Each structure stands twice: as C-alpha cells, then as structure tokens.
C-alpha cells in the first residue's frame, strides 16, 4: 500500500510537470491553431537562464521567481515576433516546421553555451522534507503541484470571463472571421506565446528544484506531448489533467510492469486513446465542410 501511495504521489508530481508543459502546448494551439514543438526547448533555455540568475547571492526564491518569469515572458514575445509572426498566413505545415527548426536551434545553442555536464541547481526552498502522514515530499515537488493547480484555475477563469481569453478562443476557431470581428490577431498570437513560455518557465523552475539541470530537460517537452494529446490539444485545463494521468500511468507501469516501460507508457496510452477518441478526451471535434 505504501509502495502504491508513493508511486501515485511521485506520478502526480511528474504529472504536474507534464501538465504545465501540456498547458504551454495548448495555449499556443488554442490561440493560433498550431502546435509549438519548441516548448521543451523554451523551457530548457529559461531553466538555464534561471540557473545563472540563481547564482546571484541572496536572491531568495521569491526573487528568483520574480526575475525568471518576466525573462520568460520577454523571451516568448521575442520568439513570436522574430520567428512566428512573419509566418502568419503561410500553410500550417510550414508554421509547424518553423517551431521544429526553432527547437533544434535553441537546444544546440544552449548546449554550445552551457555545455552538456549536469549542473547542481541551488536549493532556494531549502532541503527540508515536508511530511503528510506516510508521504514525504520535497519543497520542489510541492511547488510543482501547487503551480499547476493555481495556473489551471487562473486559465479556466481567463478563458471563460476575460475579453482576451474569449478573443483567443475566437481566433483559434477561425482566424479570418476573428480578424473581421475586430480582434487584433497579431496581439492574440503574441499573448499566447507570452503565456506559453510563462508555463514553460514554471515547468523549468519546478524541474530544476527537483532534479539537477542538464540538457535532457528538453526531452521533457516531447514527453509532455502525450499529456496534451490525452487532454485534447485545444483544452488548456484538459492538458493539466492529461499530464497528471500520464504521470501516474508512467509511474505505475514503471513500478509494476517494469523494464523501462516508464519511458513509453505515455506514448502507448495515447496511441490507444487516439484510436478511440481522435480529438483527445476534452478536445472539440472539428467539423469540416468541403
């Protein structure tokens, strides 16, 4: 029972990381209708920048958060302005390929600058263990789960009630119609990239607080795909839920079935889910006319 609970808990923690990444995917997909294959790499570069920021003496956790997040936002805006906006109106394939190209460029650049050796990230939250009954959690793990919960609620409210959120939904539905209704599509695209890299920043920080920083962190972006697919690419909250499910499923597969199944359990799961529900669990079915 204890074994099961521990697997479940660490699954939820890893799942919350996947969830944050999946929210990053869904954010861009929801607003612009394209998949951002570079989320993992954006997370990677932010994590490395935050590593340098954390070297500042007595910056503290709040200080780190308050510097990293704005940096992430600016980075998102810059990427959108330089690489994504000029592709507006091009076929979807080219636009997605731009993000793939971007992903490779960012990953290589980061490795060229910071090297491949793992770096010991400082522990601004301390090394103490927080106990809940039988469960023991590190502060970084709690941060990850809490960040997912808070962002999830904020996003649900944002999409339902705020003007920008509703404008984003309209843009994703039909770019041209949204433009004709007076929505500034360019701003929407910029905001979605800003938010997406903010989620990536939270995921990157949470990763650094739990593990040491190494180039493999960008793999997490690919591992986040099953989560966003499971939740439906266009559902931000669904992505968070999908992340938790995939995290738990991976850990259970690794714990009970064993032999490296942990790495691919998520991918197997989505191939099965997609056969039954082609638009994910929470995705909207697209109806197409000739």
């Amino acid at each position: 029972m204890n074994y099961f609970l521990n697997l479940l808990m660490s699954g939820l923690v890893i799942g919350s990381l996947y969830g944050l990444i999946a929210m990053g995917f869904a954010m861009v997909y929801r607003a612009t209708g394209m998949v951002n294959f570079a989320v993992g790499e954006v997370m990677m570069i932010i994590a490395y920048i935050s590593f340098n920021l954390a070297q500042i003496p007595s910056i503290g956790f709040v200080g780190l958060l308050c510097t990293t997040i704005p940096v992430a936002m600016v980075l998102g805006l810059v990427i959108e302005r330089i690489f994504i906006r000029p592709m507006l109106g091009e076929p979807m394939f080219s636009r997605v390929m731009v993000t793939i190209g971007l992903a490779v460029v960012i990953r290589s650049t980061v490795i060229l600058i910071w090297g491949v050796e793992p770096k010991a990230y400082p522990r601004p939250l301390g090394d103490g263990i927080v106990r809940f009954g039988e469960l023991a959690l590190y502060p970084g793990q709690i941060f990850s789960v809490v960040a997912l919960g808070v962002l999830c609620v904020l996003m649900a409210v944002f999409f339902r009630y705020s003007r920008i959120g509703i404008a984003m939904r309209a843009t994703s539905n039909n770019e041209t119609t949204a433009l004709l209704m007076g929505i500034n599509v360019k701003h929407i695209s910029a905001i979605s990239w800003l938010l997406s890299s903010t989620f990536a920043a939270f995921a990157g920080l949470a990763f650094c607080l739990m593990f040491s920083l190494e180039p493999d962190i960008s793999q997490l972006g690919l591992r986040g795909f099953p989560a966003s697919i499971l939740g439906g690419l266009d559902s931000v909250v669904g992505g968070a839920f999908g992340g938790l499910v995939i995290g738990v499923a991976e850990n259970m597969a690794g714990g009970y079935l064993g032999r490296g199944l942990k790495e691919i359990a998520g991918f197997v799961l989505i191939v099965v889910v997609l056969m039954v529900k082609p638009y994910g669990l929470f995705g909207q079915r697209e109806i197409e006319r000739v």
Partner: protein
Amino acid sequence: MRTRTYQTNYAELVTLTPHRSTWVWTMAGITAVACLPLFLGSHGLNIMSTIFVMAIGILGLNLLTGVAGQISLGHAGFLLIGAYAQAILTTDYHFPTWLAIFLSGVIAAIASLVVGVPSLRLKGLYLAITTLAFTFIVRHLVLFGEGLTRGSEGMAVEPLKLFGYVIKSDFPFFYVALAMLLLFVVLTLNIMRTRIGRAWLAVRDHDIAARAMGISLMRYKLLAFMVSAFYTGVAGSLVALQTRYINVDTFSILISIEALAMIIVGGMGRIHGALLGTALILFLPELLNFGFALTGSRFTTLMADRIYEIKGLMYGVVILLFLRLEPEGLAGIWRKIKRFWVQWPLSQ
C-alpha cells in the same frame, strides 16, 4: 517556344517526360555521377553513397508528406526497423543479403500499418505526434527485445553478396547504392503518373473533396504509409550494409528532423527536390568542416567536440531560412532559373 505548359490529351499528361532531350541530359548526368569515383577519395565515396542511400528514404518521406500530405516524424523508426530487419534476417536466419534488402522494406511497410491505421482518424498535428510516439516505441522495443536485437549492444551486419561477389569496400558499394537510387527514382516517377499518384495529390489538397470524387481515403492513406515505409525500410537496410554495424543511437529522433529538413530544402512533393535537398543537407557538414579548417585550430576542436550540436544548429537554421525565404525549396529555385532561360528575351 518550347514550354509544354499546356497538355492537350491524356497521353501527354502521363508521359514520363515531355521532352526527348530530357533523356539525353539524364543519361549524361548519370554517366557523370558514375565517373565520380575516379576523382574521389574514400571519404568522398562514402559521402556520395550516404547521399544515395538517404535519398531513397527521402523519396519515400516525400511521397508521404509532400505528395500525400501526411506529416510524419516517425521515419527514424522505419529506418531503424529496416536496418535491424536486414541485420537479423541475414545473421540469424541466413537469408541471401540481396533478398533481405527487399524483405526489410516489406517488414517496415507492415510495421507502418501501426501508424497508418490511426492516421485514418487523425489529421495533421495529431498524426505528427502519433508518428513521433511510434519512433519512441520502436526504439524501446529494440532496446529491450534483447533476445532478437541484442539490445543496446548493437549488431554487426553481414556484407552484401551479389552474384558471388562480397561487397565490402566503398567503391563497389557506391555503384550498388547508385543503382538502387535509380531504381527507386524510376519507381517513384511511375507511381506519380498512375491513378495512385494523382489520388495522393487529391488527398493532400482536400481529403473530403477527394473522397467525394471516389477516392477511398482508407486505401490510399494506408498505401501512402506503406509505400513510404517500404522506401525507408530499404534505405535502412542499405544504411546497415554500408556501416556494417548498427545501434539504436544511430537512428535518433534527429534523423526524422534531418529528413524533414531535406524535403523542405529540396521542395515538397518534387522528386528532383528530394534528391537536391538530400545532397545539400549532407554536404553542409563537409562545407562547415572545410570552413572551420580555414579559420584555424580553435574552431576545429570545437567542431570535433560539439559536432552533434553544430549539425543540429545548422539543420535548424537551414529549415528556418528556407521556410522564410524560399518555401518551394531548391526545386523552386531550379524552376525559376529554368523559366528565366526558356523565356529568355522576354523573361522578367
């Protein structure tokens, strides 16, 4: 004026080439390439063979992505299956090596049904991610199916035997690879002018409209996946025969991205584009090497240490540049140059 822009009957529409002179040029080109080994060292021969082998796989990816419009990030997986099929069939089951090449293609084609079947329900990006998942799953199966694949140790591959000759060195392999490439180019040209090729184009342009015109989406999408995987499987088995030792790490996810870079650089859906793109992308590291050698030793050591990252950076930049500046790729540039000279005094 010799443009042949307008085709007036069906026979003209399906001819292999509208101009007689094309045959002459093609033969001259093939002869020139066949004479290359006289001038190249073993390093150059190796690169040329790699280009020919990769080009077969890229032709396959181009059929699927450029012609039939289905994005695939899973071709590293098919290449892996082809290579391992070649190794296992020849060492463990003692198949003749030349037969194993084609059987590897068939095995990859059968495996492609795993992705092909979901593709009937998935579109665009969902499909891209499923194919990505496929690569991960294949790599995992190879790593952990130790009884069959020797796991992470990798496998040594028997050299190719043809008509009693054992092909071990670069020189004969160059001609084998060239012959295989020509075979597949002719095959592709012929697929493209049949009902199948035109049905794929229709599926790419609008699948629902294609279905309304009597094209069975199920049959043609699955066929596209299988044909594409067959090409890539054959390419994989040739890679195995060329390097004579295979390992999961040879077929990383970067290969899929490299392959997409090749078809984008070449120009989507064009056969000569696929060939040009493959050649350019595979030549780039050599050019870079050459450039670094000129700048001095500091860059050469950097190049040696970080070759993987520098290559990645290069592919990324090339993808970004071509998408921004010349979406039609090298095939588009070629077409523009040709049109300029064909219409010469009147060209703009």
